[in-house]
């Protein structure tokens, strides 16, 4: 007995991602992986997976998937969207809340609408997808047709094999109070080529508000706003390595923040690097969103990384179990918890 999810409608840009493919950058292989690793980890946590199991990254518009398996447990975390469960006849029988796991049975269809609150969401299945890793990762790099499902974004009629053809009935899980709101200022560490910019250029970066361009993708977030002035050293450098979050500035002066699918090396001067703790935030920003920057030193960036790691570790303690998912008033729960903090397993009457 094998199980699968069949793609009825793929959404706008749905790809299989995990925590990425480090270790091959010297051959020119980008790292890839989930843009928003916080939401990605939340989705896996909710279905009981380990933190790095491949999940579907959904951008802007959700997919419609039909269950070709005895049963499957699904959780979606990240941007909010209406998620309807349809009977084989096409009638909506119930809905699945974001940040909550649910068990679907063969013939049912999950239909997800447009995302709000974040550009991305992650759909994890219990046990993961039965898709062979490439160079150690299930992440999709569409630009090079590497990894994921046939190296590309999902299309209608794709059949995604599941590791588990059936899942046990059990209490479902719910996670509240995950703060996905964008910060007022994204933290950056200046360098490595901040000396290729004039003092005015640096000031422009730290005092302006930029807008995320529609030309943004998984490789880079292009920003619109005041151009940054290069010094006499110019925008062109002899190619060097590119870190996650590097802000490169080509000749037109407009910054590009390099994200998960970034090139391994490049030759435009990089004025600064977004701190690792703020990378998941960037993944959530949709075109049209505003972004401003704040310079911090490396020690502060490293402290922020440790804080994010602690928040991620604490996420598991905020998962509550739900005996009968239909009894949960998600809106009320969210509203209360946004005010009062997190739900502990004890408060929600574990089991």
């Amino acid at each position: 007995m094998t199980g699968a999810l069949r793609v009825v409608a793929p959404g706008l840009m749905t790809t299989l991602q995990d925590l990425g493919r480090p270790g091959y950058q010297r051959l020119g292989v980008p790292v890839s992986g989930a843009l928003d690793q916080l939401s990605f980890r939340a989705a896996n946590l909710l279905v009981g997976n380990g933190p790095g199991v491949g999940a579907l990254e959904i951008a802007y518009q959700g997919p419609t998937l039909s269950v070709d398996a005895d049963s499957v447990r699904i959780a979606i975390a990240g941007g909010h969207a209406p998620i309807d469960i349809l009977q084989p006849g096409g009638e909506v029988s119930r809905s699945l809340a974001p940040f909550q796991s649910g068990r679907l049975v063969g013939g049912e269809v999950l239909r997800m609408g447009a995302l709000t609150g974040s550009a991305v969401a992650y759909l994890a299945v219990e046990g993961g997808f039965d898709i062979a890793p490439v160079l150690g990762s299930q992440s999709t790099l569409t630009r090079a047709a590497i990894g994921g499902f046939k190296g590309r974004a999902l299309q209608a009629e794709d059949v995604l094999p599941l590791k588990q053809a059936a899942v046990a009935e059990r209490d479902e899980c719910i996670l509240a109070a995950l703060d996905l709101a964008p910060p007022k200022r994204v933290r950056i560490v200046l360098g490595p080529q901040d000396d290729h910019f004039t003092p005015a250029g640096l000031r422009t970066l730290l005092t302006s508000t930029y807008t995320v361009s529609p030309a943004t993708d998984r490789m880079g977030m292009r920003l619109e706003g005041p151009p940054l002035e290069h010094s006499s050293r110019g925008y062109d450098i002899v190619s060097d390595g590119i870190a996650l979050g590097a802000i490169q500035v080509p000749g037109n002066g407009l910054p590009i923040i390099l994200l998960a699918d970034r090139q391994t090396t490049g030759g435009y001067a990089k004025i600064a690097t977004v701190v690792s703790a703020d990378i998941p935030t960037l993944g959530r920003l949709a075109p049209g969103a505003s972004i401003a920057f704040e310079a911090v030193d490396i020690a502060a960036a490293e402290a922020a990384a440790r804080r994010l790691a602690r928040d991620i570790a604490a996420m598991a303690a905020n998962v509550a179990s739900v005996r009968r998912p239909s009894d949960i008033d998600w809106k009320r729960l969210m509203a209360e918890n946004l005010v009062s903090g997190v739900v502990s397993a004890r408060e929600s009457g574990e089991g």
Partner: protein
Amino acid sequence: MPSAPQPRFLPAGDTALIVEFGDRVDWHLSALVLVLAQKLEAAKPTGVIEAVPTFRSLMVHYDPLATSHADLQRAIAALLPGLEARSIAGRRWRIPACYDPSLGLDLAEVGRRTGLSPSQVVERHSQTSQLVYMMGFLPGLPYLGDLAEAFALPRRENPRLKVPSGSVAIAMSMTVIYPQESPGGWHILARTPVPLWQMRKAPPALLAAGDQVTFAPLSLREYERMLAKAAAAELCLAPEGPQPQGRGA
């Protein structure tokens, strides 16, 4: 006997740092970088995820939960005394490429900017023996050099969102070959039908740092014929031989 090199350590956020030996394309700097990469791999300092060699610098990616910029910089500095540039033996390749203006999209512009006729550009570019300094930017993409000073053009001010797969492009007296369609800012002179990255092969990359490359100009008809063979996985390019030993610093 050179003394211990004194590279600059540059910050790249809290997950990477750069060990910069210089700011130019230079065989000596490149060799220092590759030797440091080998020493780093052997020493395995705590928290290092991977190191990426480039022409003149080594980018070291690290886990900020396992180490810090300061600790890692100290560990790398300890590897520098006695670091010497050594030569790297590579293979010699003659890679077919079509310089027809329908594929070499910037050939005419490069001619104008260098003061050369298109046929002079083709001749000088194809006949120069170039070293593979490094792989980067995309899976299997080689950076080759050096070309004559006349080809020291900066990259395009506005990178193209889509450069066709196989494009052979120049900037700053160097050549890159795009293994697949990609954004890119270099000036496109030609296109090769030879696949540079094939996942089913081990290693998947055709070229490696240290190889020597010249280009064999093709007519449009020959290009199309070879492209069809490549699509049927029947195109197999072999190196002409090993590079003569002892390329001097």
